[in-house]
């Protein structure tokens, strides 16, 4: 369980998170939706300890970051590092003996090629594979489906469901509501740094309809496309 209380974060005079309260239970998948700039990535970075913040984040793991796998929207790779070396680096960072990387290369990535030559989706899959090999207890997946082909999309959905069954804590963000629908136990709507709405599985349909009505509104009509 991770308890986040009254979490706030500002950049200069701009407050990005305004007193977030959130409980992330083990064995559950929590989804966060919100417009670009709503504060999703900032929230993830605060939980991962990459940003300082006001408020508190408490968990059974101390420190949390040593048990947490973070999949950033745009993963970082050293220049000239191969996929295999990247996986080894992340395993070694947690003192885990890397065993049979080829068998665990479930996305069939060309591990001996430079990661910089990978497509966006391949980079995402490599970074995801790496944090899965680390055997983390908590997973924060920022846009895990972005740029990923439909087949891998299905595999990622299966992986998230497997993580849930293993009692892991998973927090994901996605702009594709259907992917959250398939994977999440609870979805939170983040707007201007605050959770304005949350829904359990039986309320996902209403939440999506509300978001559609609110987000789309008359925007398309305003374009005057005819």
């Amino acid at each position, binding site marked *: 369980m991770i308890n986040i209380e009254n979490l706030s974060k500002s950049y*200069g005079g*701009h407050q990005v998170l305004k007193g977030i309260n959130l409980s992330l239970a083990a064995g559950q998948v929590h989804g966060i939706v919100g417009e670009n700039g709503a504060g999703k990535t900032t929230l993830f970075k605060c939980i991962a300890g990459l*940003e300082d913040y006001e408020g508190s984040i408490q968990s059974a793991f101390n*420190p949390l*970051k040593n048990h947490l796998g973070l999949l950033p929207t745009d993963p970082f790779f050293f220049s000239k590092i191969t996929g295999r070396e990247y996986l080894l680096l*992340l395993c*070694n960072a*947690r003192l885990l003996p890397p065993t049979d990387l080829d068998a665990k290369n479930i996305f069939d990535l060309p591990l001996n090629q430079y990661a910089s030559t990978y497509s966006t989706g391949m980079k995402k899959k490599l970074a995801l594979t790496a944090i899965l090999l680390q055997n983390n207890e908590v997973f924060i997946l920022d846009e895990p489906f972005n740029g990923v082909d439909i087949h891998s999309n299905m595999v990622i959905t299966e992986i998230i469901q497997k993580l849930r069954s293993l009692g892991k804590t998973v927090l994901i963000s996605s702009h594709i509501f259907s992917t959250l629908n398939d994977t999440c136990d609870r979805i939170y709507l983040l707007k201007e740094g605050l959770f304005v709405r949350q829904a359990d599985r039986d309320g996902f349909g209403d939440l999506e309809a509300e978001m559609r009505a609110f987000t789309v509104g008359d925007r398309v009509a305003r374009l005057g496309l005819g």
Partner: protein
Amino acid sequence: MNPIRHYFQLQFTLLNRHISEFGLVPWLGYLLSILLFSGLSFFLYYRTEYAPYLLVFGAFSAVLNMGERTRNDFLKSIFKSEEYRKIRLFENGIIAIPFIIILLVKGDYWMALATAAGSILMAFVQFGRSSNFTLPTPFRRWPFEFSMGFRKTFYFHLLAYFLTFMAISVGNFNLGVFSLVLVFMVCLTYYSEVEVTYYVWIHAQQPTSFLWLKIKTELLYSSILSLPVAITLCFFNPGYWHIILAFQLLGYAYLSTLILAKYSAFPSSMGLPQSILLALCFTMPPLLLVAAWLFYRQSTRRLQPILP
């Protein structure tokens, strides 16, 4: 394996790859780097009394790069906090040691100490923190190399303007010239990285006009940054206007040649031949004419498939 040890072994492998792709066997690359670095450092000591300052500046610039935010966020997210600190300390140490050795050999003990202390302190500082503040620049019309570069290095320009002020205050003309050179040296770094092909492809121009656009932009924008220094120096040292003009023109020439050199290898990074020729130009400025012409011919050839 110890995570820190594995990390540095991996970095060594990656460095060897960079050297190999540059066209050298790794051991020769290291040997040449040592010779080039020592040679250049002693040449600086021979030519200017400000050599120790330049070395400290060089050390801090190199160390500064290691504190880049995305890279550090990645390291923080994969290593334990203590390991991350050790890695950053080792990295900064490895980078600063060559500079410190030269400073010690030349007897500049305080400068060596300052470099060591600064490098250690910078291991605990992360640069480029997220902020909603956007640094305004005067480079609005063609917002690319200069806008991005200026935002990363504006403090060096502030330093150059401060040095100009000091040069005028204490009547030290050489320091003034150094501040002008510093402005151009910083501008040179704006063209050190190769952009992705897309940023060239979007231009509806042929190679020659594309290169001319790049050079025109560089001439205009480097003038915005350097002319305040040059004009101030001319105003307070009217008898030396020809020296200031010569340095100003040399600055333009080096920048333009670097642009041509960069595109002469496009879309790859500059290789050994370009680097050697550029290094020769720095020691013998008249060579710039030949180099610029050669790089121009190669650039137009390399850009032709992207800008037909």
